């Protein structure tokens, strides 16, 4: 064996010195130990370093593993990179992304278009009902006297709409999160109803829904309808009587999406305590009085228009009375103008054709 460097020779000297101090002759074991140190001492440092690295990696792995098992922590970790990753994918492989998203987006578009068409057909139906009939003229005249929009009154008569109950329901469990009723004295088993509604909803989706987006959105019985609008973790069920006005469903969807977004974590880890959803009462109440609110807003707009055009004298009167008076005055003035026109026409006939049978008969009457 050749000793290659001074460090090794120094080490051998140290070992020999130690052995001679102890006074013991060098044995085979000691020689073997010396040999082992000569061979491995150089690598021992590297082994220790590797062991240290391994321990560090193991600790990192344990922490990462714990993070993977904790859904909330994992979500927190990966959510910042999801949006940029999607954007990069869309930018780099647009065609592939379109193909992947088409089944979802396509269904959403179909649904939105269907709903828009339904709204359009409702509006056309409403126009056909309201235009050019004696009844409609009478309704418009009544509406004018009452100070409301003629179309609103006609719609109200043609399509009665009344919200009876509003349920906010946890999508997965069917547990009731909040409930509002038009009549607080009527005690419905709202929690049982929300459970059964969810069961029926799940059944329909399981049996009939071929795509994840296909959902039961309406249940009808007699004159009452249950409108359902679902988001990812929560859905709203509204019991109405009559036909909902256009835009009502969009309003429901807007509310349910807002709630789903605002209460995402509470809904995901829902523990059965519904008190945390009490602040939603105000928002849900908007669905209860949606119709009244719309009518109110229309009336306000109309009042603004009228106040801008009426003169100072009539503006001193209270608004409903003023409208009633102005309508009556317009009606009387109209009749007077018409009578004056007929009278002048008659006089003109008499003067221009004195020998006609018509003028003769008029003269004889006079």
């Amino acid at each position, binding site marked *: 064996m050749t000793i290659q460097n001074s460090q090794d020779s120094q080490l051998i000297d140290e070992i020999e010195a130690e052995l001679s101090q102890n006074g013991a002759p060098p044995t085979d074991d000691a020689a073997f130990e010396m040999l082992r140190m000569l061979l491995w001492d150089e690598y021992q440092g590297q082994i220790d370093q590797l062991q240290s690295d391994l321990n560090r990696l193991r600790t990192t792995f344990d922490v990462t593993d714990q993070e993977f098992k904790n859904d909330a922590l994992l979500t927190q970790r990966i959510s910042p990179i999801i949006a940029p990753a999607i954007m990069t994918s869309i930018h780099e492989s647009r065609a592939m992304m379109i193909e992947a998203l088409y089944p979802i987006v396509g269904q959403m578009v179909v649904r939105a278009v269907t709903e828009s068409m339904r709204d359009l057909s409702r509006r056309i139906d409403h126009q056909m009902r309201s235009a050019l009939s004696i009844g409609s003229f009478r309704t418009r005249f009544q509406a004018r006297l009452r100070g409301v929009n003629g179309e609103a009154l006609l719609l109200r008569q043609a399509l009665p709409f009344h919200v009876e109950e509003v349920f906010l329901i*946890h*999508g*997965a*469990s*069917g*547990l*009731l999160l909040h409930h509002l009723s038009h009549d607080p004295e009527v005690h419905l*088993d709202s*929690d*049982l109803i929300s*459970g*059964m509604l969810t*069961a*029926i909803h*799940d*059944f329909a*989706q*399981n*049996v009939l829904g071929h795509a994840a987006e296909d959902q039961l959105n309406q249940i009808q019985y007699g004159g009452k309808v249950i409108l359902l609008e679902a988001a990812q973790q929560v859905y709203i069920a509204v019991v109405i009587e009559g036909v909902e006005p256009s835009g009502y469903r969009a309003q429901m969807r807007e509310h349910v999406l807002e709630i789903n977004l605002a209460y995402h974590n509470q809904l995901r880890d*829902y*523990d*059965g*305590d*519904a*008190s945390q959803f009490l602040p939603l009462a105000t928002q849900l109440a908007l669905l209860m009085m949606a119709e009244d609110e719309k009518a109110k807003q229309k009336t306000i707009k109309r009042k603004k228009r009228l106040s801008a055009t009426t003169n100072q004298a009539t503006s001193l009167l209270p608004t409903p009375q003023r409208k009633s008076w102005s309508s009556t005055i317009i009606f009387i003035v109209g009749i007077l103008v018409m009578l004056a026109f007929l009278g002048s026409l008659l006089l003109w006939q008499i003067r221009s054709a004195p020998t006609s049978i018509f003028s003769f008969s008029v003269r004889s009457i006079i």
Partner: protein
Amino acid sequence: MTTISKKVCLLGDFAVGKTSLIRRFVYNRFEDQYLSTIGVKVSRKTVFVPRSEEMVELIIMLWDLAGGQEFDNVRTSYLRGVSGGVLVCDLCRASTLDSLPKYTNELAHINAKLPLVIAANKADLLDQHQVGIDQVEKVASMLNAPYYLTSAKQGEGVETLFRQLGKLLIG
């Protein structure tokens, strides 16, 4: 007093007495026809359970799931959002006890740590029993769930079953 609602599913083979258990002690509003049409009926049972220094009003929404094979597909969707399970077997039919692990697996797909209780039903029909207590104990131990001998006919053990389930749900 805090009020908490939990969804609990009753699972078990056909005619083990799930609906009878519910019918006896639970508030019903809907007809049993729902079971045969859509495979589920929802009922409610309210129990009061102590928690630390207060009493909790626990509203257990019981989903009675039809046991027949025809509802195997829909049953999975009814298990979504479940917080606990009542596994029901009939002491007069040994096969109903053997089915319990199958239902436990279905629940484990939703959540592996769900609180479960076993109702060994028809305890009153002693002369027709095919299943011994030791067998029920063995299955209960395997599924890591407490068991209760119940009789929907006489009311034995049912209240205790739901009370214990309530403690597990709140605890």
